[in-house]
């Protein structure tokens, strides 16, 4: 999910940085002090989740919790995803620094779509699963498309197959966390839906 440096053209990476920074300044404007704690906690959760690895389809994949970030943070998920990806790149070597903008757009779009899914009038468990699913499936689809354009990798089909399975796991994990939060601290979800 985290693209490394040296795969995509430099020009595309620089342009993506510009778009990502514009997105941060737009979606991160006027952050209230009360929001900051929640942003920090979700950033920490996403940061830690990326170290939960499991083998799948001849490669190693990890949890992302991007859907959960979208559910709890709404449109604020985008700057949080960018910041978390920056720390993951610097400390865990997950993804490159040059390609950080591309990764932020891919994953940020997934989290934003998850936020939109969470606002739908579906039952909690269904929309939580769908939010977790699209939070991974959309970044994977964007990444596979970029690989296809750059002429890199094992092909769109292989990437899509691997990450569809990851998206299903993400959906299940997100459903579990949302049901847990609903019982323990429903205010977090109520505030997110507002």
């Amino acid at each position: 999910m985290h693209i490394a440096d040296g795969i995509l053209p430099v020009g595309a990476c620089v342009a993506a940085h510009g778009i990502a920074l514009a997105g941060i300044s737009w979606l991160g404007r006027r952050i209230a002090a009360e929001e900051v704690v929640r942003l920090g906690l979700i950033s920490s959760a996403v940061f830690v989740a990326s170290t939960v690895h499991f083998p799948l389809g001849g490669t190693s994949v990890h949890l992302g919790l991007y859907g959960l970030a979208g559910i709890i943070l709404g449109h604020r998920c985008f700057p949080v995803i960018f910041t978390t990806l920056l720390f993951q790149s610097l400390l865990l070597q997950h993804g490159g620094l040059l390609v950080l903008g591309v990764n932020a757009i891919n994953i940020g779009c997934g989290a934003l779509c998850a936020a939109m899914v969470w606002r739908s009038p579906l039952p909690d468990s269904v929309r939580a699963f769908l939010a977790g699913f699209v939070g991974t499936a959309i970044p994977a689809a964007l990444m596979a498309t970029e690989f296809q354009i750059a002429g890199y990798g094992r092909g769109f089909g292989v990437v899509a197959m691997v990450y569809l399975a990851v998206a299903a796991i993400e959906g299940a994990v997100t459903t579990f966390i949302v049901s847990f939060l609903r019982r323990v601290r429903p205010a977090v979800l109520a505030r997110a839906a507002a």
Partner: protein
Amino acid sequence: VRLPLLFLLLAQVSLAHDLSVTEQRAAGAVIMTCSYSGTEPAAYAAVVIFGPSDAKTEFQNGRTDARGRFVFLPDQAGEWRFIVDDELGHRVEKRVMAGVAASVPTGAQPVWQKLVLGLAVIGGASGILYGMKSRRPNRPQPISESDDRP
């Protein structure tokens, strides 16, 4: 007279290009050096290796380097099959008795240390942002009449 001489010359050329493999050990790793008659290195020749427990699935494959060398680290003791083929008609299969190679320390920072560092940085950044956002501007306080009284 010329024909036997020609055959003799070709045989000499063939012998001169015999592919041979020698083995060395270093810290449990097996270094295979492939050369033509021990002089000219068999550079970029295709190599496949089979472990003692599985004769069908390759343990490793690749190519020799520019000097004809190929290094592998056995993960179990026993007889290993090393096959080198320059894809120009020269092929050698060599059996190597090897023990388990010692694991090489990577010197990488443990993941838990990176995690703690990352969480500390995120927590610190959030704290700084919270401090900045929660700082209210200094507004003039309204003066109540009761305060004016001595």
